[in-house]
């Protein structure tokens, strides 16, 4: 699960990680109020940051006002102007795609002077099943680029399973940033606190980019990106409240309600599959057959009438879908039952209306596959059956061509 920068910084602050002073705002008035408050506490420079679930905001532009997603403001008036430009406008960054994301929340922070920029990240290293902390002197740029071009500039420490991060490891990382004296001590403290927060919140990614050294010798997280392990959210009810559903694709949210795993893509052939691996393979088949997958949809183990109906509704809510491929490998689930489920779903008046002119190819394989094919072939409905994956692919090609 993704959260906003201001939420991430609240969490970091709770664990003793240094972040700039900041206040979230949902309206222009609130943004002005926030700036006034920061001013009364001594701020002379403000940073106004659009809060969307995507990176690259500083280089991004809004569609209407052409404003950047991160603004440096020298006065409260400039904060007001910036907030007016940003709120309600759509911000397009390198990570949002062309459609961009509507700015609904802002974060007003104290403007921090920067002496030097660094990178710190925490994540799981899958190759050894240990958490890894990475630091780099190349802050403020994309870390993937650093990893690609100058991997020697990323220094890593792996945390032993079931153990805390050792101070010795934090010291090695702080030295790797070339720090000494007061900033060194603060960096060690920062890294220790950061890892503690990562571990305590069951996070999957912590990324502080940039981490900055100020002229006053402070070490502060200027930006923060946090992702949580979805599997562990059941034990963090407080974190669940941070979810911002407006940042997510509405179809995906809807699918989630039915326990369907759906991801919207840009293609023309919708698909419904049981199992994540087979679902990906089915998308690949669609591409090889000359189409483009319109979605990823894993209906899970129980492919019954209800799940198939809900699956249809969600796929068909995407107007670019011109054909649908259902690919179910019946193991414990019997194919004849799935076939009957599909037919019943297609007969549903609401779905029947929507599928007019959209060819449906149903590929059922596994237990009772032949019976299932017969059921579909004899149904008199406009549903094409297939048994082998190859046959299904050929039918997709035909459907797109027609």
């Amino acid at each position, binding site marked *: 699960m993704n959260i906003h920068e201001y939420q991430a910084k609240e969490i970091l602050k709770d664990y003793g990680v240094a972040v700039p002073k900041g206040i979230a705002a949902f309206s222009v008035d609130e943004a002005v109020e926030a700036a006034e408050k920061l001013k009364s506490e001594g701020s002379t420079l403000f940073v106004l940051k659009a809060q969307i679930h995507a990176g690259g905001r500083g280089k991004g532009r809004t569609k209407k006002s052409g404003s950047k997603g991160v603004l440096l403001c020298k006065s409260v008036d400039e904060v007001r102007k910036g907030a007016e430009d940003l709120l309600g406008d759509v911000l397009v960054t390198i990570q949002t795609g062309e459609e961009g994301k509507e700015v609904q929340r802002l974060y007003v922070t104290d403007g921090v002077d920067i002496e030097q920029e660094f990178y710190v990240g925490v994540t799981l290293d899958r190759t050894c099943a240990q958490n890894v902390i990475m630091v780099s002197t190349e802050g403020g740029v994309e870390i993937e680029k650093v990893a690609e071009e100058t991997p020697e500039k990323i220094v890593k420490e792996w945390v032993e399973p079931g153990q805390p991060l050792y101070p010795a490891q934090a010291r090695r990382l702080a030295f790797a940033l070339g720090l000494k004296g007061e900033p060194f001590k603060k960096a060690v403290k920062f890294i220790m606190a950061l890892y503690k927060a990562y571990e305590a919140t069951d996070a999957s990614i912590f990324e502080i980019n940039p981490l900055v050294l100020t002229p006053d010798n402070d070490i502060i997280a200027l930006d923060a990106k946090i992702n949580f392990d979805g599997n562990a959210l059941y034990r963090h009810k407080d974190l669940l409240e941070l979810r911002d559903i407006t940042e997510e694709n509405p179809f995906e949210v809807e699918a989630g309600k039915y326990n369907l795993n759906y991801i919207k893509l840009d293609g023309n052939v919708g698909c419904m599959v049981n199992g994540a691996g087979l679902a990906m393979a089915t998308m690949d088949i669609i591409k090889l057959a000359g189409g483009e997958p319109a979605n990823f949809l894993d209906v899970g183990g129980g492919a019954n009438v209800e799940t198939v109906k809900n699956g249809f509704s969600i796929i068909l809510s995407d107007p670019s879908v011109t054909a649908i491929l259902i690919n179910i490998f019946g193991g414990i689930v019997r194919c004849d039952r799935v076939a009957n489920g599909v037919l019943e779903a297609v007969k549903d008046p609401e779905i029947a209306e929507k599928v007019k002119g959209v060819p449906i190819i149903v590929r059922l394989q*596994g237990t009772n596959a032949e019976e299932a094919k017969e059921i579909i072939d004899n149904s008199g409905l406009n549903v094409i059956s297939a048994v082998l994956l190859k046959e299904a692919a050929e039918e997709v090609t035909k459907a797109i061509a027609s």
Partner: protein
Amino acid sequence: MSVLVGKDTRLIVQGFTGKEGSFHASQMIEYGTNVVGGVTPGKGGEKHLDRPVFNTVADSVEQAGANTTVIFVPPAFAGDAIIEAALAGIKVIICITEGIPVKDMIAAKAAVDRHGATLIGPNCPGVITPCEAKVGIMPAMIFTPGNIGLISRSGTLTYEAVDQLTKAGLGQSTAIGIGGDPVIGTTHTDAVKLFNEDPDTEAIVLIGEIGGSAEEEAAAYIKENVKKPVVAFIAGRTAPPGRRMGHAGAIVSGGKGTAEDKMKALSAAGITVCESPAVIGETMKKLLG
């Protein structure tokens, strides 16, 4: 001969009396797997499916000679169930449970390694040696005994490949579903090693998917050590970066873990890579002549 499970398997089911555990335990018994009992804390001494229920894994080892376990315990308790099995001296631990927190799996995997056990999964369909032992949730009728070893992260895609092999007249020595999570016990490379050393496995099918670098590591191992023919398929060529495709582990991040990279690494290691998932069976058939 076969790998991991077979005639010598003495299986217990953790989460034996639960809905999933009960259903699949009865299916495994029906297949002929030697299920010697199950574990449900608090129900020790009872009988279930005509087998004894134990309070702890240690009891099942002591009293029923269990050497293998299959875990159906809910995700919040599954990490602990794995650790319990490792501490009790079980050497083959197969965890079906989906949705275990990564933090719990880091601890569980470390415990398994410390105690010299082998963990398969979690979030996997299990392991089957056709006609000897089925330890998991796969549909038994698609499997047939033979000499192809199969490794896959996913459930239904494994069935797809097995079905194609069986239809092509190629039986399986053992099929291992290693699971789709970011932290898993046995990796592609570990499974390749097992099959490479198994005299009854003549060829290997390796099915991977986007995310991580496990397939690239397996490719490097195969290049150096494996003479047996290997056919591979990587799912997820059409998956967009940054999106988790169902499996927690299936995500292309920072330009790493793409299907193209993996296919290139596998091809470079001399492995026959299928472009389409529809031709895994026939590709192997051609390769073996």
